[in-house]
């Protein structure tokens, strides 16, 4: 039995689908962010898997994942700053409450 590409991609798909579910259903901003990280992670994993199985000679996928991780870090930092700020101003982090700028 071989560990082929498909083996790694299936958990990635599951991770991604869970991310979507969480992103759409969660009300808490941080929980949404967590779901986002799940999706991001699944994409990262795909890059690496494709790199390894299809282009084993190069390292583009890996480098891309490295960048993605860096960007994810940056993004999370900013997002969390914003979330904290929102919490300060309206007292919770519920997306349904954040509609002052709607329309």
């Amino acid at each position, binding site marked *: 039995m071989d560990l082929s590409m498909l083996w790694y991609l299936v958990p990635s798909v599951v991770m991604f689908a869970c991310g*979507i579910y969480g*992103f*759409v*259903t*969660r009300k808490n901003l941080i929980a*949404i962010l967590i779901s986002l990280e799940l999706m991001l992670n699944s994409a990262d994993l795909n890059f690496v898997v494709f790199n390894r199985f299809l282009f084993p000679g190069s390292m583009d996928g890996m480098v891309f994942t490295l960048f993605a991780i860096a960007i994810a870090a940056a993004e999370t930092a900013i997002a969390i700053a914003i979330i904290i700020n929102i919490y300060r101003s309206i007292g919770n982090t519920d*997306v*349904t409450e954040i*509609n002052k*700028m*709607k*329309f």
Partner: protein
Amino acid sequence: MDITLPILILAIPITMFLVLGIGGVKMSHKLAGILGILGMGTTAVLAYIVAFTYFFSGDANFILDGVRQQYQVFDVTWLAFTQTLVVNIGFLLDPISAMMLVVITTISFMVHLYSWGYMEGEPGFQRYYAFLSLFSFSMLGLVVATNIFQMYIFWELVGVSSYLLIGFFYKLPSAVSASKKAFIVTRFADLGFLIGILLLSFYTDTFNFVDMTTNPEGVLASTGGATFMGASVLTWAMVLIFTGGMGKSAMMPLHIWLPDAMEGPTPVSALIHAATMVVAGVYLVARMFPVYCVVDAAMTFICVIGAITAFYAAVVACAQIDIKRILAFSTISQIAFMMVSLGVAYDKPIEGVHYSGLGYMAGMFHLFTHAMFKALLFLGAGALIHAVHSNNYTSMGGLRKYMPITHVTFLIGCLAIAGIWPFAGFFSKDEMLAAMFARHWFWGAWMTMVAGLTAFYMFRMYFLVFWWEENPHYKEHKPHDAPWQMSLPLIFLGAVSIVAGFIPFGELVTWNGEPYHIHIEAPVAATSLVVAVCAIALAAAMYMKKNALPTKVKNMCPALWTAAHRRFYWDEIYMFITHRIIFDIICKGIAWFDRHIIDATMDAFAKITQKTSYAIRGMQSGEIQSYVGWYIAGAVAVAAITWLCLI
């Protein structure tokens, strides 16, 4: 002929209008009055010179082999519609225009002079003179028109001058509505005139009177036998043109504006609504006479309208209280007389008639004499109103002792209009009746009856004003004769009314320029004289001394009297049509339609757009989650579709 004089005749009044209209505010009343009178006086003198030159100089341009010619002094292009259809502004001299020059300038000068006394101290005195000058200019331009379009231009201008002068006392709502009515009714008639011109000029390809009248057969031929709704196009055109004349000359059913026009100052009524402007319709028919002659239907139409109007106005005049209204209806009746006279005339010999164009000559003659004595009557009425400050004869009575000059001149006017020898009206009326009898006995008999009615209502008024019984108010406010500025015109016009009948009019004015020797038709003259005298006697019996006879007569048929007094409800009918139907239903309906249908449709487009926007803006909720939801749904859908397509 040198063109300076004709140009000056038109230029002086319009200059006066501009000077008095623009600079009048800064002038004193006296200066404005003197300027106006001087200007009109000069114009009158120039017009006399021109007319005299035309009639008596014997110049080959004017009279050739004993036949008077039409002569265009000048004729310059004003506006070119097409290569051939060109509007000119010119100056046409022919017997009727020369005669009208004299009539207009004389009456206008008299009125200018008279107004100096009558309008003294009125605010807007300068404006009044400015408008009078404008009117004189327009009227002169009308009569000397070389082409029908020039006539239409000045036709509109006299309409406006009339509007301005009727509404001179613009603070009175009655004057405002009277002026509005006058303008709109005549404007409506002018619409017919305009359409008539459109039709006529389309076929003849010319506006020029001389071109059309010298070749009426050609005009008829140019229409190529086209018909519309059973009548030939030329008939339509000529009837429509006559409609314009009906409006200006207050023929039924477009007469309703003239009695109301008496809201204007009395001298204005004398000038515009008795002597000059209202005869424009007659003048128009006379001008186009040869063309009318080739369309019998139009001529019959003129006769019928004229005969009905003459009788109607005479009957109504018998039941009026306001002396100016009586005079107004008398004017309508007399103008209708002229119309019938023109209508019975013919340009070719008729069997058994020694001169078929007699009606034309007689109509013009009556136009001339009527202008003089009707102006006289109006000015006399003005003097009366000036004295008692009321228009109604009920405030008058027994005035002959207080106002002798007015009395005598007014009597002259009444005798003249009643057609008593040797006053002017006798001669002209006799010729007219002769012409009518010559055409058909019916017209003659009918119009003789109208002449009798005329004598009756004029003397009814005369007796009620000057005899009857003295009004008790005279003790507080003693009436007296008017100042010299007002008396002078009365005396002058009275004198003219006596002698005008002896003018050899037939030598001067005939339809084709050939002289005609007037001779009294003894049977006709005798009949009309007898009828007139009987009518006067009846009036004297009823109204000379205060008695109960008039009331008895009135009570014999009160409904008739009321109907006549209310002018047979024409005003009410018009009010119903204009206000209830046109204004309330059509105008308001259209305005409603515009706001609630057309505009609402446009608004509905906007509303639909807005509603749709509101409906779909929920998608643009600002919630990242729903965006992602839509995004993923979209992505899945696209992928699935692509996938299915690829397999």
